[in-house]
């Protein structure tokens, strides 16, 4: 940008994520295309402004490099951050690969600006953000053709002054919220349409609401979001080779949640496993409850697997074992992939023995040994 290669454009170095979203709000309200990115605690620090941007209907696009939320402090990947914002009013799209992340951003701007609502493109922290892989870069001219110039629905302009951000009381707040919801319902139509347009323009199948993988005759279907789908597909292929009728369903759009598309993809399955990278402490799966709503009334055995929290690797081997158990109908309704129950049991025992047993995180670390001594 400093070299003028990206022009006209302004880059603002902010002091905090809260300011980042706030600057984006101001810029968007003043009629500029605005973008920012964050992750983890940063997203939580900007939460107030995240909700505000959605409430004001400002078509901001933001990358969330999904990472865990502390404490204990942890910088690795999971979906806790973005999941915490599922009700913020932002559209949430989850990328499976870096190529899709790139493609989704282009689609996100078009979606955001058409509907005048903000869009969050979620991509797994480190797993995608720090991965080095080949990506096809679209030409600027093609992107410009796909994404028309920004025409804001509302803009701060002395030539046509308006007040943006009025205080709305009980008499109209509900209706404002209904309209916000309605926009996301519109997005259920627009997301696949825009994905189709994108495919026509760039020749790549990116985005959309959901992406089924070998679900046609699958008895067991695994539902997941983000980059883990690749490893899941490997596992599916492996099991299919062995004759196991299993498939996977990628949720590309988590908000709006495509109830109909999910139901259509899953309704013929016997077992549905939702593999989640976030834990709703006190209940279990977040995505699960959305999937269950989509499957209301269907006689499907569902289970939730919490996996990959705080960057724990999700391996093909573990997935294979998991899927086999699921396929056999042996999976409990809530389970944790590759959890070390020994560590948990030891800590539970400590807690039962003395009141001041100390913080879990440190106790478990002591049990595990220092992180630095691990090879991987």
């Amino acid at each position: 940008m400093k070299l003028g290669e990206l022009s006209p454009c302004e880059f603002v170095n902010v002091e905090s994520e809260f300011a980042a979203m706030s600057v984006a709000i101001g810029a968007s309200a003043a009629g500029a295309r605005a973008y920012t990115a964050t992750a983890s605690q940063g997203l939580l620090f900007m939460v107030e402004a995240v909700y505000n941007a959605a409430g004001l209907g400002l078509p901001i696009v933001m990358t969330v490099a999904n990472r865990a939320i502390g404490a204990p402090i942890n910088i690795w990947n999971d979906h806790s951050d973005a999941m915490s914002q599922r009700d913020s009013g932002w559209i949430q799209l989850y990328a499976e690969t870096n190529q899709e992340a790139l493609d989704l951003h282009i689609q996100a701007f078009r979606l955001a600006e058409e509907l005048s609502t903000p869009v969050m493109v979620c991509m797994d922290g480190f797993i995608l953000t720090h991965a080095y892989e080949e990506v096809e870069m679209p030409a600027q001219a093609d992107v410009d053709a796909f994404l028309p110039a920004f025409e804001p629905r509302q803009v701060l302009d002395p030539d046509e002054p308006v007040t943006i951000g009025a205080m709305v009381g009980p008499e109209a707040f509900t209706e404002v919220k209904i309209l916000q919801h309605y926009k996301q319902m519109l997005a259920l139509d627009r997301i696949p349409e825009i994905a189709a347009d994108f495919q026509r323009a760039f020749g790549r199948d990116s985005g959309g609401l959901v992406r089924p993988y070998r679900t046609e005759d699958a008895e067991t279907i695994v539902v997941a979001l983000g980059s883990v789908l690749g490893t899941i597909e490997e596992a599916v292929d492996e099991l299919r080779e062995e004759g196991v009728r299993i498939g996977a369903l990628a949720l590309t759009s988590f908000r709006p949640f495509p109830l109909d598309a999910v139901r259509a993809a899953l309704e013929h399955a016997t077992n549905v496993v939702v593999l989640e990278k976030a834990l709703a402490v006190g209940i279990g799966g977040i995505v699960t409850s959305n999937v269950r709503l989509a499957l209301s009334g269907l006689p499907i055995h569902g289970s939730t697997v919490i996996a990959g929290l705080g960057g724990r690797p999700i391996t093909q081997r573990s997935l294979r074992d998991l899927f086999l158990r699921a396929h056999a109908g042996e999976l409990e309704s809530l389970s944790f992939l590759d959890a070390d129950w020994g560590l948990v049991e030891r800590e539970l025992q400590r807690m039962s023995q003395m009141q001041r047993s100390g913080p879990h995180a440190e106790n478990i670390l002591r049990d595990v040994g220092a992180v630095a001594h691990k090879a991987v």
Partner: protein
Amino acid sequence: MSAPDKTRIRFYQTGSFAVGGRLLDPEQRSVQAEGERTNAITCGHRACQGCGEALGARYALDAAVRAAQGRVIAANATGCLEVFSTPYPETSWQIPWVHSLFGNAPAVATGIAAALKAKGREDVRVIGQGGDGGTVDIGFGCLSGMFERGDDVLYLCYDNEGYMNTGVQRSGATPPAARTATTQAVGAEPGNVFGQGKSAPLIAMAHEIPYVATATVAELRDLEQKVEAAMELHGPRYIHVFVPCPLGWGSASSDTIRLARLAKETGIFPVFEARDGVVSGVSKIRRRLPVEEYLRPQRRFAHLFGDPGRPDVVARIQAGADRNIARFGLLEDEGEGR
């Protein structure tokens, strides 16, 4: 009788203290004297009777609008000013205006400025504004960021010394000994604690931004001149406007301007301006008064004047005012004082 010193003589009708005057050339009148002033915030707003903030905002914005030939966009923090001016379905603003959050007005303003720059709209100027809560407390991080980055925003803080919108709670700008909902007038140290609170203007100066000033609603012309001076510059600028709050201070609605005047004339609120971090001018006290004159009309200080009262506390407040007077040189030089 000595011969009158012509250099010192100003006479009222063409002097500098009233809003306008039929005898003045139009360009000498204040913005507020204009029949066709912008009224950036217009009739029908729901501020309390005698609201100093409504007044301060109109004063400052009208001056800014005039300086920018009508091309101003404002970002407003949450607070009284926002709530009373924009309850759906009515807004009192006549300029493009946006409210986002309590603590982000400076950053929203930065965003607007960045957008305008990207769009090549050099004619449009950006203002951020908020109360003391939104500025010196909740929004302070964003404000400091806006300063240090050098963003082209004039930020206006309307200081009524507390969170009046939410029921008169203490803010970082609440003065010592003042009673608020969260600093009750009980115990050995009634009211707000001494040594707390912060001077946002001085902190702004520490950022060495091009322009920092304080002003009150009692000296309109001074306020307008400062806004005009600020509008002549680019980069981050900060004006801290003292706006009495009849509700929060427990004062008569008609006393709003008078209290602002007394705050300045007692030395409680120093009125000055600073360029690039250095004080470049002060508004001298015309008729110095003891702080009691300022404190007594306000019920938030009533506990200082009961029976037996707290003359010791009043003396500490006086000492603070005296320090301001010495620090900023608020008195006319000896011999010139009248």
